[in-house]
């Protein structure tokens, strides 16, 4: 009666199957939907608002804005700073949600190799966030420029650095989310990992500004994760910054290191 009527003993755990399992897990939680919804609304909504605000300043001819055409490239995409929080929280919860509910024990006893679970979570999350946020980024950019076009200063995708910045938003947000996943796997508590992630994204840059006041700090602050990552998304870099791809590379490197630590701990620690 409890015996399966369908023959089952053919199955074995493979990375592909674990990917499928993690895809099912991701799409069957409301928190996934709500975090992504928040990220999208923040990006598009605030992007339009910023563009509209910039446009009205452009309309004020008594105070002309210098380098308006350059600034116009990034204005609609500024809300990435907000969107990264929603994406980061989702990245964290992909793993801490399992620890807080105990689900991790079911997961790890089904996949005792453990690492396939981490890779699958990272992969599924990356693909979803990358695809979605790239679309959102392009839509926001084009929408924002449509608003700006009323003042004839709009940028296009062929403006200098524009394509890199627009495509960069999706890349940057994906890596932020992955950093969240790595921190989640290391810290194993939602609150703790979110605090750590927000500290890195929001507090460190402030620290960086303080560092910039010292002679040696100037050489350190470009290497802070958020500063390095942010290089990809600006066309007015701070003096001494690492440059878009080098900076982003450094940010990816930090995330890769965090992920390696996460993998090591996941394998070693008691679940």
């Amino acid at each position: 009666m409890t015996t399966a009527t369908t023959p089952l003993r053919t199955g074995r755990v493979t990375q592909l199957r674990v990917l499928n399992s993690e895809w099912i897990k991701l799409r069957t939680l409301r928190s996934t939907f709500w975090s992504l919804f928040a990220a999208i609304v923040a990006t598009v909504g605030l992007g339009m608002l910023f563009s509209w605000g910039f446009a009205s300043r452009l309309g004020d001819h008594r105070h002309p804005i210098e380098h308006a055409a350059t600034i116009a490239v990034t204005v609609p995409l500024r809300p990435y700073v907000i969107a990264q929080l929603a994406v980061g929280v989702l990245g964290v919860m992909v793993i801490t949600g399992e620890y807080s509910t105990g689900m991790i024990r079911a997961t790890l006893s089904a996949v005792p190799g453990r690492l396939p679970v981490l890779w699958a979570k990272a992969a599924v999350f990356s693909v979803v966030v990358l695809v979605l946020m790239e679309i959102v980024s392009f839509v926001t950019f084009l929408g924002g420029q449509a608003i700006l076009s009323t003042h004839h200063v709009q940028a296009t995708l062929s403006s200098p650095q524009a394509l890199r910045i627009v495509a960069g938003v999706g890349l940057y947000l994906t890596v932020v989310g992955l950093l969240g996943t790595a921190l989640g796997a290391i810290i194993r508590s939602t609150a703790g990992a979110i605090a750590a992630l927000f500290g890195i994204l929001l507090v460190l840059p402030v620290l960086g500004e303080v560092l910039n006041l010292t002679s040696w700090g100037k050489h350190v602050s470009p290497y802070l994760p958020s500063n390095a990552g942010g290089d990809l998304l600006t066309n007015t870099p701070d003096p001494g910054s690492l440059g878009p791809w080098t900076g982003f590379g450094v940010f990816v490197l930090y995330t890769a290191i965090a992920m390696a630590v996460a993998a090591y701990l996941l394998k070693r620690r008691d679940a």
Partner: protein
Amino acid sequence: MIEAKGLTKRYGDKTAVNDLSFTVKPGVVTGFLGPNGAGKSTTMRMILGLDRPTSGSVTVNGRPHADHAAPLHEVGALLEAKAIHTGRTAYNHLLALAATTGIPRGRVDEVIDLVGLRDVARRRAGGFSLGMGQRLGIASALLGDPRTLILDEPVNGLDPEGILWIRNLLKDLAAEGRAVFVSSHLMSEMALTAEHLIVIGRGKLIADTSVTEFIERASAGRVKVRSPQAARLRDLLAGPDVTVADIAEGTLLVSGLTSDQIGTIAGDNGVTLFELAPQQASLEEAFMELTGESVEYRAPARTAERSAA
């Protein structure tokens, strides 16, 4: 089949499981008993490869859990803390687990029906009652049609109907030739469900015995007798291995004789008996006696309380 050899787990200075060796055989329900903090859950987590033993080893169906290509087909587990994401529906929970091993959707429906969750399968597990949660946990355990089952206190918090259901389910699973390993605090529950017992206290093995043997030993000679001629009976029963205690007016508690023997002696001597009751209820007492020294968390003794007052 589960084989533990010298299994030991330390958390810091605390030894949760201490040099534990035992075998859980297929075809029978093996009860895993011990007071709170004895190390039952820790042992079960080590069997599943969730906690790493400090020393010793344990195999499931002949191999360490992690060495199986498809662990869900080898061992199914219901853990003490519900291992279920509260935000996911029962169906999706099972579907995600099944996917890791390529278990078809049809099997998910099958186990949902098996545990009687069809009506609530599309509801989120967070809203489930204790009993529904246990049923979902059991559905997860059965998903891969495993040869070995590990259940940590499956009857905890269940109503009598749920307890009966689990009891029969476990027996059926064992009758199908599976190894079934169930932990509990309740000796009386295990006496009804299990055939074999492994008893631990403070992480150490105290007893590895069949339930029948345990019960015989536990209730050996403990018989409650009520008679209007209690004093006379007391003299008649006296013997070298027999102890008789007065527990109330006209009521004796006899150890060292079976109820058959007492009844025969009374009959031969024309002593009227109102009651002749082998003390099955002393199972819990026997259990407590057995684990007495190894109970870790206990209320202060009554006498101590009184003398302090």
